């Protein structure tokens, strides 16, 4: 893995100057273009949502919580998604809320991906039947919980705990619940991939060469398994986004006053007849990020299933 990166980056290679300039973003762009037009469209949609969530609140002179105009104004050039029942700028709030939603999805998926993959690989590679049985039955039983039910239970139990560091109220409990459930998916995926790989010639060769277990796991198995689990992680992001946004309807999730898409939709429900834009603004943002991620994930999964083995 790292050797390929070094070759690609070619930091000290005078014979290959164009590649030296291939920085991360252009390389990602190039990779996405090779995935086809639907992935490019997905990436553009996602970049649009992500960009407005990051930059609109920075460059806006208003605070998302400020009362800037009359309540329930229709969408216009000045207020793209209109104003809500307090006269707050819905577009600005949607962008601000997106930060929390996308952050939760990113942290949740990345932590579950890392831990789940490592657990799945090491349990399988170690070939200790006892550990395999214990961990995989644990995985089975956690997967048996419908996610929403587990999150609800978890969030209720820990709702007394307030925010943690910069994370607003309700977020740590939500992240904990997401992690508790989600790592099991990756553990399963990693395990099944490791089962295939641990008999592969290059792994057997590494074992015969006397490499340590740690080296085999990290240098030989991990890069291969990660391809599988990471491509699933992109699709997983949609699920986490959806669940985060549906929790406020059940009285859980990110707690007000932190703006969050689901919370905004839930509050806008009351004004659905007079001012549907309060609900439809966050709904549009949620749907757009979902579609963007799904298009991207589809292409990545297709690609990795074609190149594997």
């Amino acid at each position, binding site marked *: 893995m790292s050797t390929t990166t070094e070759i690609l980056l070619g930091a000290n290679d005078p014979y290959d100057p164009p590649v030296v300039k291939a920085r991360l973003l252009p390389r990602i762009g190039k990779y996405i273009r090779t995935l086809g037009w639907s992935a490019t469209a997905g990436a553009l949609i996602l970049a649009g949502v992500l960009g407005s969530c990051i930059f609109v609140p920075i460059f806006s002179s208003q605070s998302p919580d400020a009362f800037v105009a009359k309540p329930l104004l229709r969408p216009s050039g000045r207020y793209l998604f209109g104003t809500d029942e307090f006269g707050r700028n819905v577009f600005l709030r949607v962008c601000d809320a997106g930060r929390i939603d996308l952050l939760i999805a990113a942290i949740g998926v990345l932590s579950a991906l890392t831990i789940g993959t490592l657990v799945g690989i090491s349990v399988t590679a170690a070939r200790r039947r006892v550990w395999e049985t214990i961990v995989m*039955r*644990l995985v*089975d*039983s*956690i*997967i*048996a*919980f*419908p*996610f*929403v*039910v587990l999150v*609800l*239970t*978890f969030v*209720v*139990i*820990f709702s*007394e*705990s307030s925010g943690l560091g910069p994370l607003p109220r309700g977020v740590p409990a939500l992240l904990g619940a997401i992690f508790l459930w989600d790592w*099991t*998916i*990756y553990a*399963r*995926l990693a*395990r*099944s*991939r490791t*089962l*295939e790989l641990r*008999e592969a010639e290059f792994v057997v060769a590494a074992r015969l060469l006397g490499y340590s277990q740690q080296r085999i796991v990290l240098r030989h198995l991990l890069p291969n398994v990660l391809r*599988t689990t990471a*491509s*699933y992680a992109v*699709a997983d992001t*949609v*699920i986490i986004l*959806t669940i985060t946004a*549906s929790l406020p*309807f*059940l*009285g859980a999730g990110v707690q007000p006053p932190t703006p969050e898409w689901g919370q905004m*939709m839930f509050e806008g429900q009351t004004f*659905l007849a007079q001012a549907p834009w309060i*609900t439809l603004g966050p*709904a549009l943002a*949620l*749907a757009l990020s*979902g*579609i963007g991620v799904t*298009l991207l*994930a*589809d292409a990545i*999964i*297709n690609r*990795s*299933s*074609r190149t*594997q*083995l």
Partner: protein
Amino acid sequence: MEGPRAPEASGLVKRSGYSTEPELGGVSTGPSASGSKRDRSAVHWLLRRLLQVPIVTACVLLIVFILLRVVPGNPAVTLLGVHATPSAVAALRHEMNLNVPLPDQLWLFVRNAATGNLGNSLVYNVPSTALIIPALGTTLMLTSGSVIIALFIGVPLGLLAGFTRSVAIDTSIRGIAVTFLAIPAFLIGFVLLLVAALKFHLAPAGGWGSTFLGDIQYVWLPAAALAAYLVPVVIRAVRQSTKQTLELEFIEATIARGVSTARLAVRHVLPNSLLPLIALIGMNVGGLLGGAVVIEAIFNLPGVGTVLVTAVNNRDFPVIQGTTVVVAVLVILVNLGADLLSFVIDPRIRDAE
């Protein structure tokens, strides 16, 4: 065969991972069963699969038990809030058996759960099972209704996408699938509620009837909303298995014999999609029940989800705990049912030696 399909499958069935589990994977992924690395006799597999049920159920009970006990501080105070009277706290501690040693608590909890006693509701002062069991009927009707609707929409679309030579049709059907996959079911529920129920009065906006036929009138709209969760999954699975089946030799032979396309689709291609579909619905039942919780909240149906949300708002812990256990056990049983069903209907699995 199995390797390349594993991530694909897990991507399209949302919460799977399941189909890639080797012990079961050979079964769930159908045609590749014989390619499984660890070939075991079918009876052996069946016994192992049956044995998993009590083990996983025990783990579920253990997790629920631990979840309750890892709450920092006094769980009774946490549940009742800091302003609870000491007598209420003492009563709850007694109710939750918090006064006995931890191993005894576990034993009591498991023993009670095994006899169907999941504790009394703190708010309604009735056994929590008395709240959960009636609600279960509503939820089962909602979820099975959504499965039926999803099959009626998804299977023809998937077949069409798999059969067609037209890139436009294939792309637009896949586009529909992607869109529905990305849009949460509760948003679609909202739209249906607004358009179908409030604007055109095609169905009641919520509530529940008293007779079976009356219930169907109430359930179809929420079931349609919930089906949105399953439709893309079904479309993609049917499309993929159709494409795979069409490449097999016997299809070529059948076409050469002059069989009509309709017959080819229904008699020769569709049966091969059946197995992935059963496995798929089995493994999505957890997500479906989770989605049902939200849909019930929006349409105000008296299902398990509503019981759960009410219990959450009331901090009625025994009911939350009971619902969690019941729903988890339900998922385990449905998964088992799906596996057994594939075992029964597919000779390739049954006779795999």
